[in-house]
């Protein structure tokens, strides 16, 4: 029952620098047909073929779900990451043929909501671009609070203000503007759902305050992709296939497993969907768990790992793959 996604053959139709850190990429289908319809909050996994190496990173679709002639994503440059965003910024030009996954939504709107209250931090704005477009088209009730470092790094703040006017509130770190979160969360009408996407500190803060103020957990939604972090290289034995592999500094464990010709199922590649969960047969060393899927108990047990985002330091690791 493998649940990998179907692939789409696309061509880069446009590359648009948005500000100092963020660039937008447009994709169209190579066969000229329409792309699959999607729902606001969905992401695609982009395959980046960089010489010998293939990286697969998830990015939220940020166009209107009503327009399936093209998909758009926005990529924030991460100078100390594993190089996926640098590859996108430096090497992806209009006309390049790429492969992306079908859309997958792990950050779906709850359509029962009487009101959608959205909180974005930095590049966490992207899923809300699609969700606001979807809701606006249906006459939905939403309000977006968006925190950015400076006005010039407020990616799409101008577009959102232009489209939705007072439904968008902006907060700039450099002007010391802060969301009065407790007041905001305490003054919402019954039936409001809360959505948050941004740095993990922000997500944690919003979830904690919402819980403290009595919001039911099923009304609090968050998008928490952890980008795979680089780290020291390590060796792994795959017991089922009888292979021994090395995970490079800039490679995720999942990518190293795939490079060895083994294909575990995956969806998000960000430690949230649970698809690539892998059993540990034995280990001598320390896990660096970066996922949001396994329980703390699982992490402590040393019996499971999410190879898309987590790493290992030590002498030996044997996985059931």
């Amino acid at each position: 029952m493998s649940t990998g996604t179907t692939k789409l053959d696309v061509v880069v139709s446009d590359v648009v620098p948005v500000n100092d850190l963020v660039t937008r990429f447009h994709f169209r289908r190579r066969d000229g047909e329409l792309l699959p319809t999607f729902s606001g909050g969905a992401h695609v996994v982009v395959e980046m073929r960089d010489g010998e190496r293939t990286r697969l990173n998830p990015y939220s679709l940020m166009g209107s779900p009503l327009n399936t002639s093209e998909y758009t994503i926005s990529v924030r440059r991460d100078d100390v990451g594993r190089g996926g965003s640098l590859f996108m910024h430096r090497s992806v030009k209009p006309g390049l043929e790429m492969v992306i996954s079908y859309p997958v939504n792990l950050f779906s709107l709850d359509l029962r909501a009487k009101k959608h209250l959205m909180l974005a931090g930095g590049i966490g704005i992207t899923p809300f671009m699609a969700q606001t477009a979807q809701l606006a088209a249906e006459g939905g009730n939403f309000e977006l609070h968006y925190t950015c470092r400076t006005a010039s790094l407020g990616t799409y703040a101008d577009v959102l203000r232009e489209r939705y006017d007072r439904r968008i509130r902006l907060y700039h770190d450099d002007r010391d503007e802060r969301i009065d979160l407790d007041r905001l969360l305490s003054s919402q009408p019954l039936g409001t759902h809360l959505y948050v996407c941004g740095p993990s500190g922000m997500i944690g803060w919003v979830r904690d305050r919402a819980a403290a103020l009595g919001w039911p957990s099923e009304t609090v939604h968050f998008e928490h992709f952890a980008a795979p972090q680089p780290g020291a290289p390590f060796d792994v034995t795959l017991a089922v296939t009888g292979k021994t592999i090395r995970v490079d500094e800039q490679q995720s464990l999942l990518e190293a497993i795939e490079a060895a010709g083994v294909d575990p199922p995956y969806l998000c590649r960000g430690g949230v969907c649970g698809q690539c969960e892998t059993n540990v047969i034995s280990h001598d060393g320390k896990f660096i768990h970066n996922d949001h899927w396994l329980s703390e108990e699982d992490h402590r047990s040393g019996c499971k790992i999410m190879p898309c985002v987590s790493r290992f330091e030590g002498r030996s690791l044997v996985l059931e793959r």
Partner: protein
Amino acid sequence: MGITFRKETFRDDFSFRNSPEHIRRFPFPFHEDSYMYAVNIEPHVLGPKGSVLENLIDVDEHYVAEMQDRALVLAEDPLRCQSLPHMTLAGWDLLELLMEQQALGYPEHFTLTRDGDRWRWINRPLGIDDTFTFGDTSTLPYGPMEYITRQSQGDFCILDQRDGNLWMDAGMVTTQADWSLDFDIGMNFFEWHAPVPLAHEKGIFVRALKFLTNIQQGKPARRLNWTMTINPRLDTSPENYHKWGPDRTTVTAENVGDKVHLRVELQSFWRLPRSNGIVFPIRCYLIKMDELVMQPKWARRLHRVIRDLPEELATYKGLTRYRPTLVEWLSKLDDGSPTSPGFGPD
């Protein structure tokens, strides 16, 4: 060449029959000589020509009669079709899916033309030619789910996905094996499966839910389920139990072949793109014993399956009262010789 639609009934005089071609394509659900629950889910991909999997949404010779029977059920009991307020978008998703699939598989019977959000739908077997605005409910005679499921064989449940669970928040259910949409509406996956015996203990529903919540767009899945029905009655609902329940006392050694029907559900699961919901079509196929035993392998195998079925399952499926009569009748067609592996006839 199109399908020749039969004129037949699923009530009163029960004139429903399968043609010889439809007997051969019947989705016989037993791949071995015994039956137990399993998470028997597989990718819903196209199967051989001439099988019920030739198209992902199957239309067959019973289409027109089934749609007439559905209209009769709805006229008596409108609550067989319900959609909670947040499910309208999912209804449009389903309308698109069923129009696309039926037009793709049966172009001689169905045509869909799209010009932006102006859509024209032609359904020749039912004499429908409607132009409407996709997304605007006021341009259709019914809500989008009701409109298209009055024109599509099988029951349809639309499940909302949230909080890591699936919720039965909309559906068109008129051909069901003794369960009620009106009772289950708004329930989650574990709640509506609560009456099923044995499977909870085996952890089947936990695994099934995990699989279903990860169903991806463009990658539908399917499974077969089965029960038995006395007389070819599509509407065996709890609401109408007083009409069909007593039929189970009418089975005799003389009328088994005509009265007892194997009822197979082809269940499929599809991610809906706009709403991120799941639609769960439950397509019901009926075949009477006289028709089924024309395939000697099926006769031998069905005898062994029904004879050895665990008591809890026989009770849940409602076979208890007539099982001895049926097993006795089938035993005469089982010479004890081995059956070949797989579902199909020899």
